[in-house]
């Protein structure tokens, strides 16, 4: 079925991005919006807009009934869920397909399977993808745990099976400490989560976060190489690059092949991302999880490969086979993306919604600013703080960094504080320039390098 009309079940910069990609393919767009987003750029761009509820996301963008009512009323051929909100909600995907509408993404079944951490780890292991060494599920007691700890080595993490989002994790560095902490961790997990079950995982120190972009049409599966996303604050990505600066070509080949094997194992359909931890010291990579949607940082992949991932998703959802073979996908140069957030980096990243008085965007054919902003727009407090993504391409990484510094200098957002000064500092940092960073680099760097450099300004304690 060719897609002639598309409902965009998201907001912000990604809704703008999807609107433009759809229009480039001649698809009519229908934008849903909450009462807080009536003046949004996505609503202005769309051919039709339908209000779906109050500002609170759970009453609008997360409300499956409201979104489905809009899709049915607008008689669209397809629904694109973007990222966040309902994008990885298997029940939503089922509701869309159940209504005879194409879901721009994998099946509800695939979302459900890959969204379950333990099940996804099992699928990955069966497809030959290395996983972080650990207990493969719950450990019955301290005696059983001792053998596993011996095998995987220290330091290791004791994790609550019912925990999540960083809660219920203890790091121990010796057998003695392990035996003391294990019963405590179990009692604590029982109290906190009503489930004392524990599992064990090796700690990968100084790991990088590297992820592989995959595309599948259910029968053919390819990768579009990797992204390096190690610069993170509170587990949120801040700055992303493609390709990785440190992977040797034989490791890159193995890494990307493993992601394709995983896609094939679940007959993947759509765009997805397989996330890994990568250890520079041992050149080993370990599967973390699969994201079954378009990723915020997808543009760095587009910049180095020339592929429009959102258009490709729409074609796949319309039943077309992949338009590319693996050998068609080539890396050209280097790309970096900076997430420009409405947060004050000088005040501990305090969110800063408010009016935009002026907006000046850098231009140039190797610069892209994916944004929800326009001069006069009022940034709402109800949603996340991402204002835009500045993406710059260069013939190599050094060229890219130099173009990035120029682009950041030319970007002017007047009215509210943003994280642009953080990116200016990162783009000028010698460790960043030398690619010497890992997932735990940014937070200490903010305290020791960024904050002191700000002199008299109020800074995070």
């Amino acid at each position, binding site marked *: 079925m060719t897609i002639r009309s598309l409902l965009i079940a998201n907001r912000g910069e990604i809704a703008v991005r999807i609107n433009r990609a759809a229009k480039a393919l001649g698809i009519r767009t229908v934008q849903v919006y909450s009462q807080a987003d009536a003046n949004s750029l996505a609503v202005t761009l769309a051919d039709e807009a339908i209000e779906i509820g109050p500002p609170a996301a759970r009453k609008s963008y997360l409300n499956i009934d409201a979104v489905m009512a809009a899709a049915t009323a607008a008689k669209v051929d397809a629904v694109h869920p973007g990222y966040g909100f309902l994008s990885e909600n298997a029940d939503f995907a089922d509701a869309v397909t159940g209504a005879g509408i194409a879901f721009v993404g994998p099946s509800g079944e695939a979302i459900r399977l890959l969204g379950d951490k333990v099940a996804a780890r099992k699928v990955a292991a069966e497809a030959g993808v290395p996983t972080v060494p650990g207990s493969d599920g719950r450990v019955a007691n301290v005696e059983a745990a001792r053998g596993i700890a011996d095998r995987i080595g220290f330091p290791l993490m004791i994790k609550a099976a019912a925990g999540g989002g960083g809660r219920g994790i203890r790091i121990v560095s010796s057998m003695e400490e392990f035996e003391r902490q294990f019963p405590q961790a179990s009692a604590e997990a029982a109290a906190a989560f009503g489930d004392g079950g524990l599992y064990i995982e090796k700690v990968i120190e100084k790991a990088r976060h590297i992820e592989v972009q995959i595309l599948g049409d259910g029968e053919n599966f390819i990768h579009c190489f990797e992204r390096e996303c190690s610069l993170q604050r509170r587990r949120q990505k801040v700055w992303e690059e493609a390709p990785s600066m440190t992977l040797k070509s034989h490791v890159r080949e193995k890494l990307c092949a493993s992601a394709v094997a995983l896609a094939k194992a679940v007959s993947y359909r759509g765009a997805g991302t397989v996330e890994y931890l990568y250890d520079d010291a041992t050149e080993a990579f370990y599967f973390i999880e699969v994201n079954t949607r378009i990723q915020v940082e997808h543009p760095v992949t587009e910049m180095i490969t020339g592929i429009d991932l959102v258009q490709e998703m729409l074609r796949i959802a319309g039943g077309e086979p992949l338009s590319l073979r693996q050998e068609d996908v080539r890396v050209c140069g280097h790309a970096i993306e900076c997430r420009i957030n409405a947060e004050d980096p000088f005040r501990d990243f305090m969110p800063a919604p408010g009016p935009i008085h002026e907006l000046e965007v850098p231009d140039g054919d190797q610069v892209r600013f994916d944004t929800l902003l326009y001069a006069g727009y009022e940034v709402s*407090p109800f949603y996340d703080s991402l204002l835009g993504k500045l993406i710059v391409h260069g013939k190599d990484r050094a060229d890219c960094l130099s173009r990035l510094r120029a682009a950041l200098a030319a970007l002017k957002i007047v009215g509210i504080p943003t994280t642009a000064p953080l990116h200016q500092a990162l783009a000028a940092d010698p460790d960043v320039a030398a690619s010497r960073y890992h997932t735990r680099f940014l937070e200490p760097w903010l305290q020791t390098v960024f904050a002191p450099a700000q002199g008299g300004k109020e800074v995070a304690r």
Partner: protein
Amino acid sequence: MSKSEIRSPLPGTFYRKPSPDSQPFKQDGDVVTASDVIGLIEVMKSFYEIHAGIDGQNVSFLVDDGDAVMAGQVLAEVEQ
């Protein structure tokens, strides 16, 4: 006895309870001290504690749980 206002420093969504199933931080009529948390503001998916900032009694809330508030809006009044 004079009335004093507790204002929101941020725009966002005001919550009177630490979680949907919990009791409110403070009930109308309660005594508050400056360091007491009287609610949370959710702004851009982050939560910030709102402290009373003043000692007082007979607190009365002007904003309901889950209401949208503007920066500087009065959340509650206390008697001093």
